[in-house]
């Protein structure tokens, strides 16, 4: 999954668009979605981002749907808990059951609250997906650097990003080697194999970091990673589009000023 997201980040139809534009779109939209409380706005953002990801960036809609279902299902559970309330006397419940002297039910207010929360979170998630599916990490780092995020944080991001994939690859290799010799035949051998896998991952990571340090040193590493970036040109057309879309979002949410229900 993670590999695929990363793959799409480099291979999508918006890959050549200026990273600043994509980031601005992301940042503006997510801010609007989080700050201005309107269910319609949240819905609009979800649809907008889905459209941008599927039609503009050309990510398969099935893959995007799967991605959205991941946090979607988590959110569902959380939101149900928000929607349900327990009280002694029957308020204006839309739906309720009596349990002894308590009433368990869903009030109109709570329902609105829950729906708002659900859509707003999903809106924010889709903004994040938009960014991570269209913008490679290197570009995000370049932007963060422009935004004066400390270099230490950026260096850590780069190294962690690289190591995630190295570690994944190493794990896969060891796992394959073990399974090809029946390491995961039954529970007992599986435990034994797994413990060896973890152990050799530790040892290998250590050796790996050693060779990596040697190679850094051989290229005059002085405790600092540098970041180069290539100049890209901004497109007035895209910027205008972003302003119009986000402007419309602001206006609509201020105008409706409230809730769907």
């Amino acid at each position, binding site marked *: 999954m993670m590999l695929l997201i*990363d793959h799409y980040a480099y291979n999508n139809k918006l890959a050549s668009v200026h990273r600043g534009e994509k980031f601005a779109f992301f940042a503006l939209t997510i801010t609007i979605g989080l700050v201005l409380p309107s269910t319609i706005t949240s819905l609009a953002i979800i649809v907008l981002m889905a459209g941008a990801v599927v039609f503009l960036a050309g990510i398969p809609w099935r893959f995007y749907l799967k991605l959205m279902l991941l946090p979607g299902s988590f959110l569902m559970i959380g939101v149900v808990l928000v929607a349900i309330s327990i009280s002694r006397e029957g308020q204006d419940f839309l739906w309720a059951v009596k349990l002894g002297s308590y009433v368990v039910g869903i009030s109109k207010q709570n329902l609105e609250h829950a729906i708002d929360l659900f859509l707003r979170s999903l809106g924010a998630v889709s903004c994040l997906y938009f960014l991570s599916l269209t913008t*490679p*990490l*290197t570009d995000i780092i370049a932007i963060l650097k422009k935004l004066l995020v400390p270099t230490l944080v950026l260096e850590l991001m780069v190294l962690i990003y*690289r190591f995630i*994939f190295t570690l994944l690859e190493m794990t896969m290799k060891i796992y394959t080697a073990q399974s090809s010799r029946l390491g995961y035949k039954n529970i007992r051998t599986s435990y034994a194999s797994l413990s060896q896998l973890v152990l050799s991952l530790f040892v290998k990571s250590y050796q790996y970091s050693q060779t*990596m340090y040697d190679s850094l040193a051989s290229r005059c590493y002085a405790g600092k990673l*540098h970041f*180069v970036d290539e100049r890209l040109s901004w497109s007035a057309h895209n910027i205008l589009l972003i302003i119009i879309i986000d402007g419309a979002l602001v206006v609509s949410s201020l105008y409706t000023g409230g809730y769907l229900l």
Partner: protein
Amino acid sequence: MNQYILEAREIDYCYPDGTEALKGLTMKIVEGQKIAVLGANGAGKSTLFLHFNGIMRPQRGKIIFMGKELNYRHRSLLELRQNVGIVFQDPDGQLFSASVLQDVSFGPLNLGLTPEEALARSKQAMLETEIEDLGKKPTHFLSYGQKKRVSIAGVLSMNPKVIIFDEPTACLDPQMTRKIMDLLYRLNEQGKTLILSTHDVDLAYSWADYIFLLKQGTIAGEGTPREIFANRELLRQCGLTSPWVMEVYRELVNGELLPENVPVPQNKEELFRLIRGAAASRTHFRPKIAGHR
């Protein structure tokens, strides 16, 4: 002025676990040459190369670059590493950046060049290694051959005088091997001194100007390819075989298909030319041979 650009003088190195990897090894590298360091696995090639770059420090002996002894202070190390680049055997261990361009520009930026200059040099290096299209790719999406070329570009972009390649063609397919070797020829023509380790005798025989035979941490022999490969006993002791070109040549001479006084061919093309020449001169005798039967 010394003609040797890089020297190791009687160096000893013992790993913390007690393995004596180098034992009183002396190696002198002539500027502008193509050097092959031949040795079986575990002979100490990689260990020696890490010394040439100041990453390891010998317990005894010294490393000399352009006539100056390496003193392992910051400035001295920096000067050495700027001029002697290593392409490590495992490209995965060398690539650490998120993207190819980032990795290639790492060295030049460390040299204190301006970003524009570093970018220009990186682009040049990527052009030479034919990876100019990969710039924005993350290193984990590359094939092995691509990773190898990225790691070479990362060293080229620093523009070193000497480039050391630790088993550059191990695990590469024939076409990629060819490409890398072509690149090595070109680099040498640009005046760079190249040191390459390998256990591929054919490659060393046809490519190198000078060969060092490494055996258990010592130099077992050195000389031009013809000198080295004339000594079959020495090769056997070092766990190596004769290059096939030489074997075929010997067989042809033994079978009296080639006269004994022709010079030993240095590569496949020369050998084939000899065979064609011999075949052409033979056609004159054919009636006689037929008459014998």
